[in-house]
């Protein structure tokens, strides 16, 4: 087992994943979120959402609400907070249950229509 996080290296995982951690301390041991949040589901704080009115919430909850003042995908929130995605999902479930955020899942089954694909190709060419 390596002592350092694999996150410090510019390569994918090598022989083993990172250090043994207890990341779910923050969630009080809960590992299952109330909702399935896709990695690219956008999270948006409700207008006027005030986590201070919920004293049971942790600082990480409040940071999530602050970050989500504009739409931010779940994966970016996890990266910004430097927390595992699974942990962030649990925290987001807490916020959703309190009506502090809305979650906008990506359209799962349907492929984007052709106009969108064309916009992606054009956008990539313009990079």
């Amino acid at each position, binding site marked *: 087992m390596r002592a350092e*996080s*694999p*996150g410090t290296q*510019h*390569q*994918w*995982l090598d022989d*083993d*994943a*990172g*250090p*043994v*951690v*207890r*990341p*779910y301390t923050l969630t009080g*041991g809960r*590992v*299952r979120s109330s*909702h399935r949040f*896709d*990695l*690219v589901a*956008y999270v*948006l704080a409700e*207008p006027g959402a005030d986590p201070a009115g919920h004293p049971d919430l942790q600082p990480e909850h409040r940071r999530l609400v602050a970050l989500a003042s*504009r*739409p931010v*995908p779940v*994966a*970016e929130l*996890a*990266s910004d907070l430097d*927390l*595992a*995605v*699974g*942990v962030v999902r649990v925290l987001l479930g807490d916020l959703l249950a309190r009506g502090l955020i*809305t*979650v*906008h*899942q*990506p*359209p*799962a*089954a349907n*492929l*984007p229509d*052709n106009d*969108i*694909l*064309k*916009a*992606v*190709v*054009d*956008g*990539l*060419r313009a*990079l």
Partner: protein
Amino acid sequence: MDSVRSDGPDRRIPLALKILVAGGFGAGKTTLVSALSEVRPLQTEEVLTGAGIGTDDTSGVETKSTTTVAMDFGRITINEDLQVYLFGTPGQDRFWFLWDELAFGALGAVVLADTRRLADCFPSIDYFEERGIPFVVGVNCFDGSRRFSLETVRQALDLDPDVPLVLCDARHRQSGKEVLIALVEHVARQRGEPVSAI
């Protein structure tokens, strides 16, 4: 789940398209994501619990050791309503369950092949073929690696004739862009509505 778009310029929900970057260990996945991302590649982690990997089993979690798997991802903003997210895939078999999550709803995938270790990308190709996820193969041209003709590589990979196979240099954005464009055009072609080349 609420999908109603909110009003206001900063509160509009963009559409996020997910593209996977797969391939064997050391094939250049992280390099490609880095070259294409408009921000420094972001990183997040997924937690693996010791026993019930991927099962979200809450029972006894406090007694299990957990490890984390880092996942690299990058972002390309096409316009204010459209963003492309690139996710590098974990390179080990025991993390396949993470692939399922990554692949869910994905537009398609880029499989990077290293001609020095071509077989390393076979599992990735199998994965996307089995699930009907559109993919292209990018042959990453490493310095000093022996060059093969694309036709030789195609035969070695036993690729369907319609799967695009492109040479690329994962370090260079322009080159990486061409791979992504090949993928999106492939997706459009598969649907029978080709995106016309400019």
